[in-house]
């Protein structure tokens, strides 16, 4: 049992490290956008740890706690139903080991909370031990709810209820009972079913492979892109913005949506459909590979221009000028993702900078096509220079591994 727990613990730590940089980049970016970042941190700490706890803040905390295990679970369960099954480990041990790993995956969140805890303590706020216990229960509940178990329809609601009872009701005894009940009713880890055969179609193979690899994740990418645009629409409506301010807001949020969409898509595409070494021996140039990726990303991102145009037509045209540049940049960054611990964060930062530029200096859009060409050649150079057979464990994902048939 100890060996199993240690194995899953290590997997959890590795995934937690992977999510550390993006999470902190986002948090730092959000805080730095505030007028007074120090006051914002103090306010968050006060709302979270001061009495009475802010419901909104607790809700955000709960959402984050549930997101981490949901993100990590597919990465952890690959192979659990294959070779691992011949080892002398009981199903319950595997499940508990996996649960532990899913708790550990939330370490970045725990570290953020510890920092906020220190800030709250410095402000003289009394931290109750029962609230800390509640947080542990939420984390455990989130982990159990993400487990891909046979009786998930029964165990997941129980664990979610356990987590919510702890967080909002402060009834930690009921919460522990619900979590134990959820664990008892979970059953074995679910066997991954073989996928249905693909249907033939006449669309380019690159697009087809990309679509199959991304699947429903594309919806998540569009939902993510809708956030800045939704915020922009509400902000413009509530503030009664007009003229240049309206156009600037639409430009910023439109381009930000495109950047978020492209970063999510390229990160996922790179994990699910990594470089295909054998295909490089075919008469298929690096130019064509880069073009296929840039087109695939760019055309999908172009859909975002429609809601941008609904907010402000002129701004949508300016963002359209920048779209090829952003698509080529994300294509280039995809070619470097394997080597980076920080994942797509550098593209996110560069894209954020470009969105700012686009907002303040809209005529810079005139230079965008030339910059897009430079980014295209950069991506092409990176593609041909890739060491495709070099094993870089840290960005590996079994789902996109051509040699993994247990995934």
């Amino acid at each position, binding site marked *: 049992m100890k060996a199993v727990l240690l194995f899953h613990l290590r997997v959890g730590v590795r995934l937690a490290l992977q999510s550390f940089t993006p999470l902190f980049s986002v948090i730092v970016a959000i805080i730095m956008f505030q007028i007074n970042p120090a006051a914002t941190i103090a306010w968050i700490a006060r709302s979270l740890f001061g009495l009475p706890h802010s419901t909104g803040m607790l809700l955000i905390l709960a959402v984050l706690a549930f997101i981490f295990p949901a993100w990590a679970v597919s990465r952890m369960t690959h192979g659990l139903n294959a070779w691992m099954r011949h080892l002398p480990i009981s199903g319950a041990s595997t499940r508990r080991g996996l649960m532990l790993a899913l708790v550990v995956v939330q370490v970045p969140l725990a570290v953020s909370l510890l920092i906020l805890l220190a800030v709250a303590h410095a402000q003289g706020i009394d931290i109750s031990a029962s609230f800390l216990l509640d947080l542990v229960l939420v984390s455990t509940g989130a982990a159990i709810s993400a487990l891909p178990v046979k009786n998930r329809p029964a165990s997941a609601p129980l664990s979610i209820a356990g987590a919510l009872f702890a967080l909002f009701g402060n009834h930690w005894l009921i919460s522990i009972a619900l979590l134990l009940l959820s664990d008892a009713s979970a059953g074995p880890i679910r066997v991954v079913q073989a996928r249905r*055969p*693909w249907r033939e179609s006449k669309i380019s193979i690159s697009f087809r492979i990309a679509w199959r*690899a991304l699947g429903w994740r594309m919806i998540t990418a569009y939902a993510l892109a809708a956030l800045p645009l939704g915020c922009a629409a509400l902000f413009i409506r509530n503030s009664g913005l007009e003229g240049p301010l309206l156009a600037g807001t639409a430009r910023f949020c439109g381009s930000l949506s495109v950047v978020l969409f492209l970063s999510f898509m390229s990160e996922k595409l790179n994990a699910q459909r990594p470089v*295909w070494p054998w295909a490089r021996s*075919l*008469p298929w140039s690096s130019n064509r590979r880069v073009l296929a990726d840039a087109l695939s990303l760019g055309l999908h991102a172009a859909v975002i221009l429609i809601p941008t145009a609904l907010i402000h037509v002129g701004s949508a045209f300016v963002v359209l000028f920048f779209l090829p540049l952003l698509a080529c940049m994300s294509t280039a960054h995809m070619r470097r993702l394997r080597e980076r611990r920080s994942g797509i964060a550098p593209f996110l930062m560069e894209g954020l900078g470009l969105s700012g530029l686009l907002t303040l200096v809209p005529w810079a859009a005139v230079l965008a096509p030339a910059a897009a060409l430079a980014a295209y050649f950069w991506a092409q150079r990176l593609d*041909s220079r890739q060491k495709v*057979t070099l094993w870089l464990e840290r960005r590996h994902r079994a789902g996109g591994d*051509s040699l993994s048939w247990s995934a």
Partner: protein
Amino acid sequence: MIRFTDVDYAYRPGEPVLSGATLEIASGLTLLLGPNGCGKSTLLKLAAGVERPDRGLAEIDGCDLWRDEVGARRNLAYVPEQPDLTPYATIRDVLHLVCRLRGEPMESGLKALESAGLEKLSTRSIRELSMGQRRRAVMAAAWIGSPRVILLDEPLESMDRAMRDQILLWIEKVLGNGASVVVATHEIEAFLSKCVRAVTVKGGRCTVSHPLPRKDDERSVLFEALLRGESI
């Protein structure tokens, strides 16, 4: 004809696999021999255009693999040791792609599929196939068209008897058409009598043994020594 001129290659800085490697492989069967990890597969990947040399030139039939990417790969077929087909494609997708890129009719893809005994699995995604079936699929892709440069990395590994015979027959046929066939292998017996030269990688350099001894038993002794990484 495969030509390497002063090729350097390293997966990680300071750990060169090839260093100043210069090599010419003309038509006929060439065996690539050496102990595990000496750089045989890397040499094949560089010749196939899968990896790009850090320095130097890699050419196929006079075309630089990285300046004229499409032209150099037009008549090239590569069968890697690990059948790394993208998991989200079907076998038919892969063979259609190869047919299209090599300018061959789709029928030749279907014929190759049939020869590899995969016609019933053509609509399955790569993720649903066993390793042996994936290797057959990659082999079927090599059978499409009439490639003049063929690079095979352990082609007989994990193949059943019938498939092995088929592969050896195909190699004999393409050799008859004047192709250059390079085989990295540890199973020398099957290729002993047909091969015209042997290449080995040692200390980042390539050494060509050509001409080879005429008698099979003398060749066998030489190949065994090369497989163990001994200096000749």
